[in-house]
Structures are given as structure tokens and as C-alpha cells.
């Protein structure tokens, strides 16, 4: 599906390429047919899929902001930062995990026209978070009830991401966009207490890789060049 999307994006679009811009032959590479970014700017956004996740999963709360700035015609520097929390208060346990996360990287546009962008990018992600379980109850088949807890522990994890980005300008300087992310934990260490881990900014899972999907709304602050 991703390949189809990228391939579709890479097809020459003669409807604007030949009539309104210039007369390159139709088999020219796409990048040469698109217009330069005429309105550079610093873009600030918020992740609007995170409040939606909280409506679906009230035990999870997170906020995330994103900043990007075009450092070339096709290259954007990207910084993302947020806070995430999972608080599972169940009859047999109470598990709390929360922390900050940061992602730094770049997006390279495959297509950029009229402020609509298809890009691929890479990120390095970092998360510093705490975990505790104030209450753990287990019914043992032979010995009966167990009641205990997990003391608070702090963790630091890093991961790498490959990102597919789509953005479109819906009003003047207001953009809507989504990212599809493939994430892999770096220097992963086995957790002594967790089969299913929650790492703020990385996600929930039992393996060292996962997919993510985020939806953003951005405001671009135009700058003069």
C-alpha cells in the first residue's frame, strides 16, 4: 500500500505540469516538475489523534507537539515532543507508567505542490519514563492469594523510526496531515517485570518493533527569505 502511494505520488501530473508551470517533457522526473516551495515557514502542530485515543482508552493520556522547518526546498527539520501516561486501575492490579518523549529527524519531500506534501522521513526517538504498580493481586492455584506491589523504577529507551508523511493545506497556513511510522527499539533490554510494555512515544507492545499512526493539525508561521 505504501509503495502504491509513493508510486502514485511519483507519477507525472500533466494537468498542472505542462499547462500552468512549464513545458517539461512528460517523462521528466517528478521533482523537476513541481514548483519550489514559495512560502517557507516554521510549522507548529499538535497531534490530534492522541485526544481521540483518550476518548477510546480513558486509561491513556498524552499530548504531543510537532515543529518543522524547511531547511531546503525538499528537506524539513522535524522535532516532536510530548508527555504520555498509562494508568491501568483494574480489580487485580494498578499499573502506572508515565514520561516524556522526544523525536528528532528530517522529512524529505517526494512531492510538494501548492503546500501539499508527501514525504518520507527518519526519526530518532527518546523516552524517559517511570513505572510503578502500587497494587498487584494474583490468585495462585495451590497457595491461594498473593498481594504485592512493584516499586517505582525509571527507564530510558531509544528507538529509530521511518515515517511516511502526508500534509495538505486546508485553509491559509492551516495544515492537516498524518504520519505512518515504523519503529524499532535500539539497545533493547529485556524487562524483568513486563511482557507487555508501554513506552511513552513508542507505544504498547510485546516486541521491540511496532507501527504507529498519528494525525496532526499545523499552523505555519510564514517567514521572509
Amino acid at each position, binding site marked *: 500500500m505504501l509503495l502504491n502511494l509513493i508510486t502514485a505520488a511519483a507519477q507525472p501530473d500533466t494537468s498542472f505540469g505542462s499547462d500552468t508551470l512549464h513545458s517539461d517533457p512528460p517523462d521528466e522526473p517528478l521533482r523537476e516538475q513541481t514548483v519550489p516551495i514559495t512560502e517557507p515557514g516554521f510549522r507548529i502542530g499538535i497531534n490530534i489523534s492522541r485526544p481521540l485515543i483518550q476518548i477510546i482508552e480513558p486509561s491513556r493520556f498524552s499530548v504531543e507537539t510537532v515543529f518543522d522547518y524547511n531547511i531546503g526546498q525538499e528537506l524539513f527539520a522535524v522535532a516532536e515532543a510530548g508527555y504520555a501516561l498509562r494508568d491501568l486501575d483494574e480489580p487485580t492490579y494498578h499499573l502506572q507508567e508515565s514520561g516524556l518523549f522526544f523525536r528528532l529527524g528530517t522529512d524529505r519531500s517526494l512531492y510538494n505542490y501548492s503546500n501539499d506534501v508527501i514525504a518520507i522521513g527518519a526519526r530518532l526517538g527518546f523516552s524517559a519514563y517511570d513505572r510503578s*504498580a502500587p497494587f498487584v493481586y494474583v490468585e495462585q*492455584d495451590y497457595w491461594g492469594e*498473593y498481594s504485592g506491589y512493584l516499586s517505582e523504577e525509571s527507564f530510558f529507551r531509544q528507538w529509530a523510526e521511518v515515517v511516511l508523511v502526508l500534509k495538505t493545506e486546508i485553509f491559509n497556513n492551516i495544515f492537516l496531515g498524518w504520519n505512518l511510522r515504523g519503529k524499532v527499539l535500539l539497545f533493547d533490554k529485556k524487562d524483568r517485570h513486563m511482557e*507487555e510494555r508501554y513506552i511513552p512515544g513508542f507505544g504498547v507492545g510485546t516486541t521491540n518493533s511496532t507501527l504507529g499512526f498519528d494525525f496532526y493539525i499545523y499552523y505555519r508561521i510564514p517567514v521572509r527569505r
Partner: protein
Amino acid sequence: MLNTFIKNRVISAFLALILSGVFISCREECHYKPQSLAGAVFHSLVEGSVVEAPVDNFSLSGIGREDSLLYDARSNIRNINLPMNGSAEESGFIFVFDEVTDTVWFSYEVVPWFLSRECGFILNFELLETWHTGNRIDSVVIVTREITTFDETNIRIYN
């Protein structure tokens, strides 16, 4: 037009995100909650060499739970599973081989293990030490300290 294509993709993905939330919000049940048991294998001296060997007329219970037998006069038992007590730092077991009784003790660290949101925690253990009486049992050796849901041999019992 390609920019119409992008707009359509962005907006339809947003709608898909909302719809997918309906499915994500359906919580699953815990279908299977495994238990971490210490696997023990019996060894005996047979014709001058130590080999895995079954025991007959074998009974087993936990000390403090003598009313509840884990094995009741069973024969041809090659390996057994021992449940450690998470509410204590030590667990003792009464081994009965053909009316010869031994007690075996294990000390350990209890390691709560979060399985999933649906299933919650189970208890893993890390074996520290073992000691025993010597009526029938010659020695007990810890070969794998971590007691988890993996089906491993943790202990060898020489008798």
C-alpha cells in the same frame, strides 16, 4: 490531480482513524493465564551412571498444604512441576517415595510479571537456594534459576 489525491488521503485517513477507534475500544478477555512452575527431573544411579529415571508410588504436597496432594501415589513419574508460594520467601515440599519421606526447601525472589492489560500479572520466581533431608534424596541441584512460563527444567533431584 495529485494535490486532490493528497487531500482525499489525508481526510479519509482521519475518518478511518475515528472508525478504527470503535474497534480498538472493544476490549478483549484474558483467554489463558499461565502459571510459572519449577520443573524438576528425577535422576538415579543406574548401573554405575547417573541417568534420568522414573520414580514409583510417589506423592507430593506443599508444607502447610498437606491436605492437598500435588501427586498422589503416582507411578512412572520422570518429572514434576513445583508451584512456589508467592506469599512467602521459601516453599517446602514433602516428597514420599514408597513410604520413605523427604522434605525439600527452596528460597527464591518473587518476580511479578505483567502479561497484558487483560490478564494482569502472574508470578515468576528466581531461585536462590535449596536444602533437603536425605532419607531417599541424595542431592538437589538448581540448573535454571528463573522460573517462568517457559517449560524448562529448573531442578534436578538425585535419589
